[in-house]
């Protein structure tokens, strides 16, 4: 594989004209975050920066994990209802949603869910976009959340101040990107790179350190660690990003008992590389999301849908080339 000349934006989205300096800035951010590093412990492979190192790619592999936080699920092992309540509960910080996927629930006046939006976009992207073109960020918020959004709603202070990722249109009144404390692209990149250091582990039973209660962290640690033990060179596949790759509405039914129609809508990204996914029954159907049943159970929380949303990050493995 040829060297990556410029790291692309997640899902290759184009929020600014192609000639914007923003894209070089994004490349520099990623290139600065990735370091070519030899593995340690029992592994003999390496993590490499694809903009610096040429590798003959032998295989690509997409790692998947459940969007609903496993940590919450196992904490309420005998009470799924309590897990759903907790996962949906913290709309200001979305702290329980720590699987690099967060969601926002919209309800009607009767309290029924009308829409659930899932995102995997990183705060780093939006901070850099803000720095490059505030009006574009405001325009995107207006399109994605509410036409009434103004620049003042999105900044921390007066004119010219920094972007406020905890603005109300990305917390209580909507969602645009990840805000949970550890849901950053930097954290994901760090996890990927650190995972080549497998210590004394000889297999996955010996790999995950205690305390990793999420799905995603052990998943990445196990898979990258095992690849590193094969002696291969590893990196993340372009365009580097955190994505939604699957959603499964098998066995979901309308109020009349018939199977649901396809109510999913990819708002940003593309199939397999979804950045923003909405679940909403079209107006005029005579019912809303909160009237649907999953396996005979009425949808009362966004987390019930999140259980059936699958996230992914893609990697590549190969051997060092000569060119």
């Amino acid at each position, binding site marked *: 594989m040829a060297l990556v000349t410029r790291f692309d934006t997640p899902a290759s989205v184009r929020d600014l004209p192609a000639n914007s300096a923003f894209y070089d800035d994004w490349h520099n951010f990623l290139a600065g975050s990735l370091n070519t590093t030899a593995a340690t412990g029992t592994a003999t492979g390496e993590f490499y920066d694809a903009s610096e190192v040429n590798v003959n790619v032998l295989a690509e592999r997409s790692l998947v994990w459940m969007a609903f936080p*496993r940590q919450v699920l*196992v904490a309420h092992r005998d*009470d799924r209802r309590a897990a759903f309540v907790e996962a949906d509960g913290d709309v200001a910080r979305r702290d329980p949603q720590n699987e690099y996927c967060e969601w926002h629930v919209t309800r009607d006046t009767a309290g029924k869910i009308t829409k659930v939006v899932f995102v995997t976009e990183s705060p780093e992207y939006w901070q850099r976009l803000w720095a490059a073109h505030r009006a574009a960020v405001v325009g995107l918020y207006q399109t994605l959340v509410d036409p009434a959004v103004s620049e003042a709603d999105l900044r921390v202070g007066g004119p010219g101040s920094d972007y406020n990722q905890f603005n109300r249109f990305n917390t209580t009144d909507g969602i645009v990107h990840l805000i949970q404390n550890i849901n950053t692209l930097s954290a994901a990149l760090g996890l990927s790179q650190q995972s080549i250091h497998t210590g004394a582990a000889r297999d996955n039973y010996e*790999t995950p350190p205690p305390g990793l*209660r999420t799905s995603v962290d052990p998943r990445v640690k196990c898979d990258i660690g095992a690849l590193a033990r094969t002696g291969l060179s590893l990196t993340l596949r372009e365009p580097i990003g955190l994505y939604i*790759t699957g959603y499964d509405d098998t*066995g979901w039914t309308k109020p009349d008992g018939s*199977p649901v129609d396809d109510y999913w809508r990819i708002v940003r990204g593309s199939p397999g590389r979804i950045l923003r996914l909405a679940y909403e029954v079209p107006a005029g159907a005579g019912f809303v999301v909160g009237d649907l049943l999953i396996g005979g159970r009425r949808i009362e929380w966004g987390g019930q849908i999140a259980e059936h949303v699958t996230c992914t990050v893609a990697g590549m493995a190969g051997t060092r080339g000569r060119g």
Partner: protein
Amino acid sequence: MKPGDTDAPIDDQFGDLMEQIGKLEPELPKDISISALGGDPAEELPGAEPEPVYDVKRRSNIQGDIIPGFNKDHQHFLFLRLENLQQAKQWLKWIAPLITSMEEALAFVRVHRALRLRLGVKEPSMRATWVNIAFSYRGIELLAGTAEAEAFGDQSFRQGLAARSTYLGDPTDPQHPGHSSHWVVGGPEQEADVLVIVAADDHGDLVSSVQRIKNRAKQSGLQLLFEQRGDTLPGPLRGHEHFGFKDGVSQPGIRGKVSTAPGDFITPRYLDAVDPRARFFAKPGQLLLWPGQFLLGEPRQHTEDLYSSAPAAATGSSFPYWAALGSYLVCRRLRQDVPAFWRFAIATASTLGMPTLTFASLLVGRWPSGAPVMRTPAADDAALAGDIWANNHFIFNDTTRPSMLRPIPGYAGDTFPQAAADLLGSVCPHFAHIRKTNPRDIATDLGKPHDSMLRMILRRGIPFGDPLVGVKRPSQHLLRQERGLVFVCFGSTIEDQFELLTRRWSNSPIQPNFGGHDPIIGQSDRRGARERFIDVPAPGGTRRVTLDDEWVIPTGGGYFFAPPIEAIAGVLSA
């Protein structure tokens, strides 16, 4: 081709394959002692967390099909509906003493093993007839009251199999033969309140026992909705399912002891203490699980740790007090369309340019003998299949390290080539049935392999119907007969064990890993579209193969609860 189209022509290749598989006979290790009675102190691991002791009283309260399982050649399933409750309760009092406990079944197994050793024969002449019983949510509600039934925390159990059918991928199209409206039992308005399982070594014993129970049930006003006879396949195919593959090779080992005597474990331990895997494997490849994964109220598997226990779910909040030591039972009557499976295998193998048996074994992950593809990728190996210390010893992501076993008299050790690392699924594909339903060391969409241990079930199924395997030229009459599997499993949750394995992994082309659906039991139903696919390893990548036919069709079943034996003549018939 529609599912169930048994009139489709079959060719010579099909007959040849059926004949070939019918001749398979796994080689059993010779002159090997298996676990001393009363335990072996050397099995104890220094510093290990003490495991619960199941004394006679507790063993006598646990139904024997849960532990150690009814491993009988003949079984009969009675699906009953409660009518007159007072009479039904009398019937329960009558049947309660007939229920076989863990104590009886385990004693039989131990004596059987001892006789094998002493007499040096494979099948010493011993016979028994065993009975177990389970109840649906409605059955418990009728017998013990709504409050008791609602105290069961597993929502899927409370809903029942029919209500969860399409969630499990069953057909949504009412015209499809697998739609719940066509089920022989367990569909809407046809759900059984009581399931009785009778198992026997001898056909005649089974028939007379079943007849006795049926007669008494009829006199007590119970309605027999459906009955199903099950038999292991004959001769060398004993233990195989109808497609011809050895089934049930891999079962979890249950932690716990029969007595306080050192080493008197329910599941014999074969790994030497110097092997760190002795802390979580009973024998190579057999993971040890805390009994609360299968028995309500017992210490369970820790969610983050391979060998520590976690407290049981609290009595009263997750199940009624009287349900402790009981287990949820899932029953699925699955029809197998053997010609359809092999038609697909023959045609696809030809397209891919590989031998049919090789391709079919990739679908399962084991060869017909039961030998794992991971350990013998090129050809079947009956000797490997017959070696119980080797036939389940492999992991997927890393090269499998040999196990260090305690001395086993007469056993020369596992000398078969160990499995090489197969992280990318190029040897045993990601879609392979055994890789989907038992990911072993693989990380999954739920994280570390420790989590996968929470999903394991005890499988207790048995085939039904006359086999085609072993028959070179089957008659039209034989071809048209129904055959399949009465799938039965036990667990302490239906939703997080059976349903998760089925929906989240078997039915998904991307979970636990990308690579396609489980081509054996996986189903897909997207608004009526039932197409599945598999990504078959090929030089330079994979080739996607579409599965536009179905060979496992649901035809009935139910969600039940197998209570502790004391509850049958107690709270359920009070």
